[in-house]
């Protein structure tokens, strides 16, 4: 296949907060503000960032669970943003999502078989076929065929997450948005699910967008990593580079902040200040209020994404200047 599987250009999502009776323009929340990236087939792109960075919103925009305010999303060459309802429905066979909360993501009144079979039913798979395909998918994720008759409340968090993964896989999609799939699980179970996702990727030739706030997990599972801050991508590179030679001060701060099991001395550079509200992002470079290297130009002009080295892009005046 030529070209990347997924290509996103200038994607935006603005929420208008507080519209009154008279539709007075109140605050505009720029949850995702001009994001561009590409993911190749079979690749895992990790997406990290803290609260308010827009990573979850971005994941849902790709599937049009939230409607974009602007920009394009090309999946296998087709612009997803312009599809009509029927077209979008067909598209949903190829692009799926796994959610964070194993407790909220499964309908408590439906049996596991119904949950995993629903996508099949929606896409007109013959009824006689459905139980067999459900059973196959359940086994793929490490559950037993017999679990189809049970209900979500009978399972542990890790198993419920497997059910959610099975639902996403039912139609054998090509691309899956993993929205913090392990954050709500115990660490011993996290490892199981991470391994499962990797195995499935190899077996079914899946492409992932892996959204998480845990840098270590992202580093483990991703091929490339993008760092988001307040609605924009500030740095994107292959995983080794981004962890070994992070260029953006925010990326550096994020990495420095992760508590390490092999601490070298007690003090490291700590990032000061609070994360600004996404409603009133700072002018110029959004990170300038917390940046230890802030310069005058940072306060006035937002930096553009430039390729520091091939495959390593950064949006920072410090890098652009040199």
């Amino acid at each position: 296949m030529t070209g990347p599987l997924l290509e996103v250009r200038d994607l935006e999502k603005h929420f208008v907060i507080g519209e009154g009776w008279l539709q007075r323009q109140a605050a505009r929340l720029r949850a995702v503000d001009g994001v561009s990236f590409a993911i190749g087939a079979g690749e895992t792109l990790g997406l990290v960032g803290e609260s308010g960075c827009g990573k979850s919103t971005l994941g849902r925009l790709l599937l049009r669970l939230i409607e974009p305010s602007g920009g394009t999303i090309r999946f296998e060459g087709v612009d997803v943003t312009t599809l009509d309802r029927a077209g979008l429905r067909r598209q949903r066979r190829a692009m799926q999502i796994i959610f964070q909360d194993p407790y909220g993501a499964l309908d408590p009144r439906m049996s596991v078989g119904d949950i995993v079979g629903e996508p099949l039913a929606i896409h007109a798979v013959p009824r006689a076929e459905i139980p067999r395909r459900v059973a196959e998918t359940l086994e793929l994720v490490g559950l037993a065929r017999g679990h189809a008759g049970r209900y979500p409340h009978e399972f542990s968090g890790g198993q419920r997450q497997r059910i959610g993964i099975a639902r996403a896989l039912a139609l054998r999609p090509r691309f899956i948005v993993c929205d913090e799939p392990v954050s709500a699980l115990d660490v011993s179970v996290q490892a199981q699910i991470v391994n499962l996702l990797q195995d499935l990727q190899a077996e079914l030739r899946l492409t992932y967008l892996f959204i998480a706030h845990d840098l270590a997990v992202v580093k483990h599972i991703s091929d490339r990593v993008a760092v988001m801050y307040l609605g924009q991508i500030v740095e994107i590179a292959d995983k080794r580079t981004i962890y070994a030679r992070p260029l953006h001060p925010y990326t550096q701060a994020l990495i420095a902040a992760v508590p390490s099991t092999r601490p070298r001395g007690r003090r490291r550079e700590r990032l000061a200040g609070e994360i600004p509200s996404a409603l009133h992002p700072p002018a110029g470079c959004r990170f300038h209020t917390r940046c230890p290297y802030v310069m005058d130009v940072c306060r006035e002009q937002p930096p553009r994404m430039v390729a520091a080295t091939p495959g390593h892009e950064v949006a920072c005046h410090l890098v652009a200047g040199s």
Partner: protein
Amino acid sequence: MTSAEPTAPGTQLLGRLLRHRQFVTGAALFSIVLLAAILAPVIAPGDPTRIAMRLKFLPPSRDHLFGTDNFGRSLWSRVIWGAQLSVMTGLAVVALNAVFGTLFGALAGYFKRLDNVLMRISDALMAFPAILLAIGITAVLGPSTSDVILALAVVYVPRTARIVRSSVIVIREMEYVQAARACGAGDWRILRRHILPNSMAPLIVQLSFLFAYSVLTEATLSFLGLGAVPPTPTWGNIMAEGRQYMVQAPWIIAIPGVALMLTVLGLNLLGDGLRDVLDPRLRIQP
């Protein structure tokens, strides 16, 4: 690790209900009334409107279990047939609320554009105190049981709709609904398969209390002369007639009053039990 008894959520809830003391008590009380209503032709044969002046004002005895009234009519007959009417009224109002309350509530909760319109209409209707609105409607349409049912439906559907709407609004945002949309499910499928089944709990609790209100309000309206026309017996109009004879024949007003009280009490206990068991906070969450 799966639990020992794999059961559907519905079966589990049923089990819990049957172990709940208030529910069982309430259900027992209400069953008595329900049975009386169903078996009326069997246990109270004969015309409850048959006058027998020679038998008037007989106190309760073996021949006349509830005594007779000022026209010599068997109070037993009248109260049993009155029970049938009360139960039917309650059922009809509950059924109308179940259908229309769910319909409007689900539409308002799910489709934001309809929400405004529907809620303003419902606000307007709710601004009237229930009883006054019911009185107004029956006064206009004339006293009869079906008008009482209609009035009660008009009065309560907005309230029921609001309750359904609240549930729908919460469920609409749950991740499993998002997941269904991600699979390509359309609005109707989501409403039918995901939202409504999960919104039923508060509605069911509300409907059980609504049954009680309906029975009580019907009695009130017919007490005021706005319900079924005498000689058709309703608990309300039996009590209205019995008012004048409170000293000589207190059983005329007392017995339907007790029947009414037990019915409403039973339904309320039933509703409490339902609410305790169905409240999502107590639901099967680890």
